[in-house]
């Protein structure tokens, strides 16, 4: 068999007017994560180890929306999710509602390997993380200037809408919302076209 690897760092309404410096930063980061995976595969690491390694690197990079640099909830808190799945055995592990685990993907793998379960969430997942001794951090580690600005931008945008508050909270879940066009709010929650790209 020949090895192969693919990775992503998010999809959405990515403006082609992205500043060149930002574009280069993103491409460099993607390339570095890919090289990490290639080197591990050349060293005959298993697919499981390589997938975890690469996702950890992506989580550690604040350019991407996972781990450090995760977006904020309506309350300004962090809630992260991850899952990992092994094809041949269909073993899998998933976590959500994490607030302190630096690398959620590694905790997901521990759920798969160390428990009889598939999915742990919120307080239970945090407790499991403590039991397993995985690395954790205070909220300030995950917060970035970008994520804070994003939240304020989205909340200001929503506050300006003319429809009632229960209609605008989640546009895609509320078909009666008066935000007519998907171009009104991009996947990253900012005004399309009128604001610089700031990531998913």
């Amino acid at each position, binding site marked *: 068999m020949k090895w192969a690897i693919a990775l992503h760092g998010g999809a959405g309404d990515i403006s082609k007017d992205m500043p060149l410096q930002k574009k280069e930063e993103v491409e460099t980061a993607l390339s570095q994560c890919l090289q990490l995976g290639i080197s591990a595969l050349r060293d005959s690491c298993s697919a499981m180890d390589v997938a975890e390694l690469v996702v950890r690197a992506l989580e550690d990079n604040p350019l991407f929306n996972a781990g450090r640099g995760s977006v904020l909830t309506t309350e300004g808190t962090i809630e992260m*999710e991850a899952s990992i799945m092994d094809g041949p055995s269909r073993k899998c592990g998933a976590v959500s509602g994490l607030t302190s685990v630096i690398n959620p993907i590694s905790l997901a793998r521990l759920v798969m390997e160390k428990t009889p379960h598939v999915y742990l969430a919120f307080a239970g997942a945090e407790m499991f993380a403590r039991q397993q001794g995985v690395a954790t951090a205070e909220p300030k580690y995950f917060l970035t200037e970008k994520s804070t600005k994003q939240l304020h931008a989205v909340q200001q945008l929503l506050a300006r809408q003319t429809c009632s508050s229960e209609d605008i909270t989640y546009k895609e879940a509320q078909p009666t919302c008066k935000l007519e066009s998907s171009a009104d709010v991009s996947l990253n929650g900012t005004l399309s076209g009128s604001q610089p790209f700031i990531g998913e």
Partner: protein
Amino acid sequence: TVGCVVIDKLGHCVAATSTGGRTNKMVGRIGDTPLVGAGNYANHLCAVSATGIGEYIIRGMVGHNVAAIMEYKGASLAEAVTEVIDKQVEQGTTGLVAVSSSGELAMAFNTTGMYRAAADESGYYEVGIW
């Protein structure tokens, strides 16, 4: 969202996905990433990691659908991915990376862009945004 799919020299497929979700999400919201078969899935035929608006990816059961089209329709990875991204999910909502157990790679999206990169043992190497 970030994600990675890998097939190693033993023909083992794995998918891994991690995310913080979307800005201003409700407290307690669960996205597609941890839901097996939605934003992350792998079986004996392929591994898939998705990204985009989670609610659409959950409704489309994107990861499992790619595998199911391969398994039951006998489609290639590229055909299955095209079917899902172009026809089965809302346009402007979804992207994914996938690898098959035969080493085929796919990166597809119906949004304006997706941060992505891929390589294989033959020397193929790609990094892209749009």
